C-alpha cells in the first residue's frame, strides 16, 4: 500500500503545481501550514491574491493577535474534562461489581434497554450474546432481499474499547437524566455490560463477583479492538489516516468505495453497461412520515401545557410515548381503557409502587401528588 501511496503523491504533486481547477479557484492538494497532503484526500483553497476560492479575505484580520478570553483554571478544566482515553487516561478513582451493576441496570436502564440488555423498541440492545461469537457475524452481508442474518453490532461485538462505554454512560446516561450516576455506579454498569456480553478479562469470563476498577480497567480487551481502519492509534495515527484517504485510485476503491478519474474528459458517456438496465424497485416501502408528505403538521395546541403534561414529558414519555417495554402508550384509548378498568385509585397505586416493567414512580423521585397530576394527564390524554 505504501508504494501505491507514493505513486499517487507523485501524480498529485504535478496537479498541485498546476493549482488551478476548472472553476478557476486556486486549489492545492497540500496544506500551506505543514506541506502535507490534505488529510481527507480532497483539495484545499489557499489564500492567493486576497481570496480563498470565491471569498475575499481580510488577510490582516487573520494575522492579528486578539488574545480574547481568560486563562482556564485547573478546577474548571477538571470539571469538564471527564473523557476517558482508550488506554485508560482520565479514568476516575472508583470501583463496582457486576452484581451491583445488575441492580442499577434494573432500576435505571432496563426500562429502555430491556431485560439483560436485549433492547426494546428502537432503543439499542447492549448485547446479542457471547461477544466473541457475535464478533464473527461482522462479516455477514445481506446481499439478497431474503437474507436476514446481518452483522450484529453491539457493545460486545463491535465497540473497540470499554473506555468509550465508561465515558458515554458517565456523560450521556440514563438518557433522560445524564450526569446523575456516581463513578462507582458507572464502573458497576460497565462491569455488568462485560458480563452480559460474556467478555473474558485475563482469560476468565467475568462473573457476578467481578469488580471493575480504575486499576484493572485496561485489562479489558473487546474482540473488535483491532477491527477498524485506518489505524488511528499511536505516533503514526495521523499519517495512517492521510495515507488511507490519499491512496491510489484502486486502493481508494477498496478502502471506502471512492471512485477517481485520471481524466474527467474520458469518463464513460455512451454504452456504459451492456443490455437493458437492471432496476431494483422498492420492495417494502417505509411511508410512516410525520406529517404525511404534502400535508401540514396538525396545529399545535396553543394552551399552556399543564404541570402534569410537563412532568410527563420530562419523566415518563421516554417509555409511554411509545409502547416500549409494554408501557401503555399515551393516546392509545384501548390500552388505557384496560388500565383504568379497576379505577383511578388502582392506577395511581400502580404508578407509585411500580407494575410489570415499570419501577416505582417510573424511576423518578417525584412526590406522590406530582405522580397523581401526571397520571391524570396521561389518562385524560388517552380518552
Amino acid at each position, binding site marked *: 500500500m505504501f508504494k501505491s501511496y507514493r505513486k499517487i503523491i507523485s501524480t498529485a504533486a504535478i496537479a498541485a503545481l498546476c493549482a488551478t481547477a476548472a472553476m478557476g479557484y486556486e486549489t492545492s492538494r497540500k496544506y500551506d501550514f505543514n506541506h502535507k497532503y490534505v488529510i481527507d484526500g480532497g483539495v484545499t483553497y489557499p489564500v492567493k491574491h486576497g481570496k480563498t476560492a*470565491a471569498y475575499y479575505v481580510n488577510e490582516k484580520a487573520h494575522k492579528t493577535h486578539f488574545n480574547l478570553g481568560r486563562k482556564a483554571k485547573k478546577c474548571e478544566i477538571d470539571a469538564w474534562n471527564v473523557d476517558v482515553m482508550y488506554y485508560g487516561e482520565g479514568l476516575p478513582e472508583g470501583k463496582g461489581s457486576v452484581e451491583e451493576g445488575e441492580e442499577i441496570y434494573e432500576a435505571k436502564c432496563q426500562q429502555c434497554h430491556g431485560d439483560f440488555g436485549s433492547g426494546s423498541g428502537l432503543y439499542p440492545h447492549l448485547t446479542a450474546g457471547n461477544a466473541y461469537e457475535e464478533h464473527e457475524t461482522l462479516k455477514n452481508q445481506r446481499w439478497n432481499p431474503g437474507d436476514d442474518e446481518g452483522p450484529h453490532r453491539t457493545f460486545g461485538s463491535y465497540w473497540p474499547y470499554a473506555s468509550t462505554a465508561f465515558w458515554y454512560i458517565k456523560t450521556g446516561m440514563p438518557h433522560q437524566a445524564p450526569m446523575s450516576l456516581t463513578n462507582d455506579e458507572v464502573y458497576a454498569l460497565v462491569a455488568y455490560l462485560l458480563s452480559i456480553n460474556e467478555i473474558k478479562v485475563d482469560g476468565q469470563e467475568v462473573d457476578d463477583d467481578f469488580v471493575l476498577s480504575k486499576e484493572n480497567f485496561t485489562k479489558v480487551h473487546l474482540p473488535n479492538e483491532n477491527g477498524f481502519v485506518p489505524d488511528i492509534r499511536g505516533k503514526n495515527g495521523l499519517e495512517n489516516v492521510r495515507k488511507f484517504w490519499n491512496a491510489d485510485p484502486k486502493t481508494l476503491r477498496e478502502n471506502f468505495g471512492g471512485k477517481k478519474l485520471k481524466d474527467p474528459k474520458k469518463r464513460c*458517456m*455512451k454504452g456504459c453497461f451492456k443490455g437493458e438496465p437492471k432496476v431494483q424497485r422498492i420492495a417494502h416501502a417505509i411511508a410512516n412520515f410525520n406529517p404525511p408528505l404534502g400535508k401540514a403538521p396538525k396545529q399545535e395546541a396553543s394552551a399552556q401545557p399543564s404541570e402534569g403534561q410537563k412532568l410527563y414529558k420530562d419523566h415518563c414519555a421516554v417509555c409511554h410515548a411509545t409502547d416500549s417495554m409494554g408501557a401503555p402508550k399515551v393516546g392509545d384509548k384501548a390500552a388505557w381503557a384496560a388500565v383504568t378498568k379497576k379505577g383511578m385509585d388502582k392506577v395511581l397505586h400502580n404508578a407509585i409502587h411500580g407494575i410489570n416493567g415499570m419501577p416505582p414512580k417510573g424511576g423518578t423521585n417525584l412526590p406522590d401528588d406530582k405522580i397523581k397530576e401526571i397520571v391524570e394527564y396521561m389518562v385524560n390524554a388517552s380518552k
Partner: protein
Amino acid sequence: MSKRSEELDATRADVHTPSRRDFFKKTATLTAGAVAAASVVAPVALSADEKKAKCDGDEKIVNLNPWETKWGYPVSEKLYGQPSPFERHVVRRTTPILSSGNYRASIAVAPIQDLHGIITPNGLFFNRHHGGTPDIDPKQHRLMIHGLVEKPIVLTMDELKRYPSVSRIHFVECPANGGPEWRGPQFNSIQFAKGFMSCAEWTGVYLKDILKDIGLKPEAKWMLAEGGDSSHMGRTIPVDKVLDDVIIAWGQNGEALRPEQGYPIRLLVPGWEANLCVKWLRRLEFAKEPFYAKEETSRYTALRKDGKAIQHFYVNEVNSVITNPCPEKPWTDLKKGDIVEIEGLAWSGHGTITGVDISFDGGKNWVEASLKGLVLPKAWTRFSYIYKYEGKPLLLSSRARDDAGFIQPTVMEERKAVGVEGVYHRNGIHTWEVNEKGEVSNVQVLS
C-alpha cells in the same frame, strides 16, 4: 365570495380586517387627499361586476380578490416573519424508523423538494440531535479550549464574537443520508431518501485564528469537540482540518444559529460529516491520541464486507440528486412535447463540483448538464438540463464529479467495493423512474 377566498379568510382569522363602518369612521379623520384616493375604491367593485357579465375568463382575473379590496396586516404585526399560510406543508418531517422512541435522539429531514437555490431557510434546516434540543442562555454558556495548548482559555460568547468573522456557504450532511437504502430503495420520497442535509451561509471565527493566539503545541494531533447539551456528544478531529477551514459558528443565514443548530455556537467542519459539526459546543481539547468517543465507534463507522469498519470517515463524498422531477414533484401535469427543466443538487465535501451528467436510461448513456448559480467549495451546487418531455418511461440519473478528481460510483461499483451493511457514506448514482403518466419512483440501477 369564491371558495378559495373563504379558505384564505379562514387562515387569516387572526388578522384584523377593517369593516366598512370602521373604514368610514377612519377616513372621516383623514386628509382631503386621502379621502379622494379612498373614494376610488368603491366604483372598482361595480366595474368588476360589469366585467364578469361580459367575460368568461379566469374568475381570479375577472373577479376581485379579497386581498385587493381590503388591508393586509400592518408592519407592526409579525415582527419576526413567518412563511405564507399556504406553505404550511413545507416542513421538516420525521419517521419512527429513524427515531428513538422518545424523539430525543432522532432526525427531522429537510424538504429539499420544496427548496430553491442553494440556501436552506433556518426553520427547514435538517435537525439531528442525541438528547433533545436545549435552549441555552448565551450569557450562561462558555467555550473552553485546553489540552496541548500553551494557554488554556475560557471564552464568553461576547468575547468569542470579538474575533474577526468569516462567512462561508457550506452544506452540512448527515453521513447516513441515503444510508437506509444500501440494500435497495425504501423511501418513495426525496425528502427521506436524500433530505438528511441542508446548506447555509455560516458566520463565525476560524478556529485557527484562536489557536494562533493561545499556541498549539507541536505534539497535538487530535482535537475533541464536545457539546454542552444533555448528550455531551464528542467527536475527534485531526488538527490538519482544524488548521485548514474549521469554523466556530454563531451565525446562520444572517441571524443567530437556531437552537436546533446549536445555539449559541456550533463547530462547522466544512464538507465533513455533520456529526462532527458539534452543536451547543462548549469544549475543545487537544491531545496526542484520538479520543474514541461513542459516536465515532458504535456509530458513524462503516462496516465493510471484509468485517473491518472504516473509522474517521470524514468526508461526505461527491454526490447528486435530481430534485425536479422527484416523487414529491412529479411530471403528471406535463403533456407530450412540453419543454421542461430538469433540475438538481450536487455537492462534494472533497472540494468543488466541476460537472454533472444526466442519464435518461439509468446510466447507460449520459449527457452533460449545465451548472447554474454560485459554484462554491463544499456547498450545494445547482444543475440544470432543458428537456423535451415525450411521455415515455425514463430512468433519470445524475452523476457529479469534483475538483479533487472524484466521480460518483454506480450502485454496483459501490456495493462491490464495500458491501451493503455500512449504513454511512452512500454516494452511488441516484435514479428516479418516471413512468408514462409522469409519476416518479425511487429505484436503484444494478447494471
